């Protein structure tokens, strides 16, 4: 018996002698870490999926720029969504986005790289702002720390917005003169890399967040320091050298031409009809129509969602439209200042269409006399934003925020439009702090009446 015990014990001693962990860590095919300058591309790509993927398509259907035409998308067209639809994207927001930004920030501090730390902060703030806008209360302070907070609490929506705004303030002091060529050069579109400045981008995102929470004075202040011209937008690179490379090409194209042909249409959507009624030349860039009854978002050569076309994170035109709107709703309206900003956007689109289709007067500046009342001007501004931000989350964000000021019609058979996305099922299943909230309940920052009304 004693002998047996000795054999038994020695077996364990031998086992504990070889350190299996060490073997794994030195496996060249299974590396577990990377330098922060390489890691930074991960949250940039996660952010791309969040703002250009499924959520943007849903937001586009809800704001009536698209139509859900086939299979799952037919249900989306009558606002039938369930919490399970959001499991994957929640992972992109937190695990691939916010968590990575926080890891990069720590690593950047270790190597004393302020620029990189600041850029990670900007991406984190933007993703958090998007999450707060879409879901309302979301985890932030206890997020992405599964050891200490396996079940993170949900921070109030306004708290998250303010945290993101503060994070951008810190980021602005860190990034210095860094531009689009520093870090993630192949993730940012080549056309803007030389001009894009991280400080300007941060201010523009900050302006958007201030606008969301109704702080119009600060929205104007931040926007004035934001993106200064149309060549300095933050654009996601999709240059696939026309090889239709999965993973590089425009995500709308990927969805509409590559993976899910026919799901996303625009037949009964409002935006194409609005463009046709306004004889807006952008119709030919935004939509493709075989005949009047077969309109689809233009995901083909020459269209906005061409395979190698970039997609915006934050733009000059949005920044100008934030100024224009804020000037009209912040205390006493300032129509003159608002008109200047609105005309800046018209000039931007005129130049852009000139570049694409040759010189022409696509958009002439508005005159003050074009608008009988301030309400008319505000409606023109919000309509322009609805058109300019085609396919972007902001279209639906604005619809909810302004209590649908421009009167976007609802989809057939519905009586109200969704005011938020449901908290994903995975989170509800795994986190006691997650709560089920009806999608027709306004998020806290949108609950009050829009001051423009």
């Amino acid at each position, binding site marked *: 018996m004693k002998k047996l015990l000795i054999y038994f014990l020695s077996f364990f001693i031998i086992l504990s002698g070889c350190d299996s962990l060490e073997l794994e860590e030195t496996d060249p095919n299974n590396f577990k870490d990377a330098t922060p300058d390489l890691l930074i591309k991960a949250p940039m790509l996660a952010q791309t999926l969040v703002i250009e993927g499924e959520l943007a398509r849903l937001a586009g259907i809800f704001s009536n720029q698209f139509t859900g035409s086939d*299979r799952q998308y*037919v*249900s989306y*067209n*009558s606002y*039938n*969504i369930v919490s399970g639809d959001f499991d994957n994207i929640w992972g992109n927001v937190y695990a691939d986005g916010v968590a990575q930004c926080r890891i990069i920030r720590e690593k950047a501090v270790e190597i004393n790289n302020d620029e990189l730390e600041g850029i990670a902060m900007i991406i984190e703030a933007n993703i958090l702002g998007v999450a707060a806008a879409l879901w309302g209360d979301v985890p932030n302070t206890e997020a992405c720390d599964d050891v200490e907070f396996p079940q993170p609490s949900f921070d109030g929506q306004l708290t998250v917005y303010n945290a993101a705004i503060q994070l951008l303030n810190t980021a602005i002091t860190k990034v210095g003169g860094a531009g689009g060529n520093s870090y993630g050069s192949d993730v940012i579109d080549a056309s803007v890399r030389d001009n894009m400045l991280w400080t300007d981008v941060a201010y523009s995102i900050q302006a958007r967040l201030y606008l969301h929470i109704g702080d119009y004075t600060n929205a104007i202040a931040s926007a004035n320091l934001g993106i200064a011209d149309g060549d300095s937008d933050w654009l996601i690179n999709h240059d696939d050298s026309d090889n239709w490379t999965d993973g590089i090409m425009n995500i709308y194209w990927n969805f509409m031409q590559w993976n899910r042909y026919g799901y996303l249409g625009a037949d009964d959507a409002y935006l194409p009809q609005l463009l046709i009624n306004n004889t807006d030349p952008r119709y030919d860039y935004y939509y493709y129509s075989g005949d009047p009854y077969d309109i689809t978002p233009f995901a083909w050569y020459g269209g906005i969602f061409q395979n190698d076309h970039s997609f915006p994170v934050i733009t000059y035109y949005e920044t100008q439209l934030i100024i224009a709107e804020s000037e009209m709703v912040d205390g006493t309206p300032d129509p003159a200042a608002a008109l200047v900003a609105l005309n800046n956007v018209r000039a931007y689109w005129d130049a852009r269409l000139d570049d694409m289709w040759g010189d022409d007067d696509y958009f002439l500046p508005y005159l003050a006399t074009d608008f009988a009342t301030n309400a008319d001007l505000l409606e023109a501004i919000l309509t322009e934003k609805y058109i300019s931000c085609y396919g972007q989350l902001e279209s639906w964000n604005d619809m909810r925020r302004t209590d649908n000021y421009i009167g976007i019609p609802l989809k*057939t*058979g519905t009586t109200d439009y969704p005011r938020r996305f449901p908290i994903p099922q995975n989170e509800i299943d795994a986190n006691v702090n997650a709560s089920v909230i009806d999608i027709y309940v306004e998020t806290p920052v949108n609950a009050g009446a829009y001051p423009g009304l």
Partner: protein
Amino acid sequence: MRHFGIAPETANEVTLTEDLVNFAGQTRLAGTTVRGNIYDFGAGDVLLDQQWYMGLGGGFGAVSEDFIHDASYVKLREISLAYNFPKSFASKLKLTNLGITLIGRNLYTWSNFADEFGVDPETNLTGVSNGRGLDYFTNPSSKSYLIKLSLSF
């Protein structure tokens, strides 16, 4: 299958005896013959037509409970009838044994599922996997007849 209008229930035609509202909120007048069904979800009869079957009622929608069915079944998997020829006959052919068997496979299925919803309760889109019983454009198990001739030397 309902989404594509090829499930048996979507082939039904009904003539309305009263004005009914469909999923899109459109009213269809009494006397109209439409492809679809009349159903009472609890608040009176409504018309389930293409608007319903392509949307929430189509299986791609947000609600999945409607698409979970009892698929218990009894299947006549294989039946065979064998005849061994007499030894005397076999030995004339220099064989120790000669037999013939008639076999029929998957001849009949007793199942509510097959009657009401689909073709075969054994069907599964995802093949050999954890997902079971997903009825989506998969062929049923084939019915087959075999003749087996056994020769023993």
